[in-house]
């Protein structure tokens, strides 16, 4: 069929496809323009909405995104604009897959004020105790950030530098503590370097 070989035949064959491509492209552009701000806001909210819970006295609207040591952190501020702490995203390998969490710290990064697990794919009913059991989060509140936290399998005193492993979720508890330790150490070093830089 000459239709399929001649040059004009090409357009006769494919005009519909080209027309569809253009109209669908326009539709997608419209969707992008109308939804993109909302999607960005949702992504930001996932983190920012936790800030008042993690750092006592913080106000969600006053949070400021900053870059410390090349990574994104959130400065938590109260209603008067004074910094009351930091909220730091952290991630690492858990038992099954990646664990993403937020760590709340006081302004000098010397005390941990709390953690919040953003995303985990641990075993449902066992490893996901790190999310479902409230007391696991409580273990981290008020812990000193100077030395790495240790995971033990007995009763712990609050603020003693020890975290009690969840029964049936030892590896997940280990993983969360390791992620917290590493991130806190990195942040401490980065803040110290920033302080030195501004003093010199």
């Amino acid at each position: 069929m000459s239709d399929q070989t001649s040059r004009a035949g090409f357009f006769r064959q494919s005009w519909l496809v080209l027309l569809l491509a253009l109209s669908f492209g326009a539709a997608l552009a419209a969707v992008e323009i109308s939804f993109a701000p909302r999607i960005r806001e949702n992504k930001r909210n996932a983190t920012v909405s936790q800030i008042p819970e993690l750092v006592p006295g913080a106000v969600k609207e006053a949070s400021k995104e900053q870059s410390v040591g090349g990574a994104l952190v959130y400065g938590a501020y109260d209603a008067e604009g004074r910094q009351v702490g930091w909220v730091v995203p952290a991630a690492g390998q858990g038992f099954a897959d990646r664990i993403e969490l937020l760590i709340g710290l006081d302004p000098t990064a010397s005390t941990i004020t709390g953690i919040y697990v953003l995303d985990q794919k641990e075993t449902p009913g066992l490893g996901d105790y790190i999310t479902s059991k409230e007391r696991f989060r409580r273990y981290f509140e008020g812990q000193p950030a100077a030395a790495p936290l240790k995971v033990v399998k007995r009763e712990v005193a609050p603020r003693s530098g020890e975290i009690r492993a969840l029964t049936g979720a030892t590896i997940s508890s280990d993983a969360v503590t390791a992620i917290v330790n590493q991130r806190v150490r990195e942040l401490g070093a980065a803040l110290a370097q920033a302080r030195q830089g501004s003093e010199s």
Partner: protein
Amino acid sequence: MEYLAQLMLIAVAAAIINNFVLHYFVGICPFIGVSRKVDMAFGMGCAVTFVISIAAFLSWTFTYFIGRPGAPLTTFIWRQVAPGSTAVIDLSILNYIIFIFVIASSVQFVEMYLRRFFPPLFKAFGIFLPLITTNCAILFACLEIMKHVAGASDPAQIWGLDKALTLAIFGGIGFAIAITIMAGIREELDGCDVPKPLRGAGITLLVAGILAMAFMGFTGVDRGLETLILGK
């Protein structure tokens, strides 16, 4: 050493621990449809691995250079058109459309290759070769790559071509492993007295469930391997 360990972890995770069929439920249709005979199943596994590799290469290239916020090619073109503008161009909305066309083209390419160099294999496949286009596993591999390239919030975490290809190839290998095991089991089942309602898809799914349970035993192996290799 750390770099190789990273790649190896992605490979082991994709092939065995987070097996595409038994953990992520992608590629179920050929898994049930083509797993009657071991040689057919193995051939399908190889074809899918081949297609996944080509599709992953093309998808990564598109996503990295065009389909993410602040991509090099789009930024370059925009600077020519509107110099001095600091707007971040984000064409990632076109990703899905480009992926499916990349996959369709990869399947066409493999079809032509097989027809030229392996005619008996091409005939044996029949209708199943074009159906690889609708194999969720390939699109899933492209989506995972997109998640780590366009969706990475930290620029240092963006996957390069090496990690993308590792995920794709070993994901395909995992699919081949799962479908071949299933074919072996089904060949044995042919000699058994399967109750009538369960024949065909029913018994295949039940066997797949037991296989999935077995593969669940691999959870955490990558973390153990990581500790072993990197001595953490």
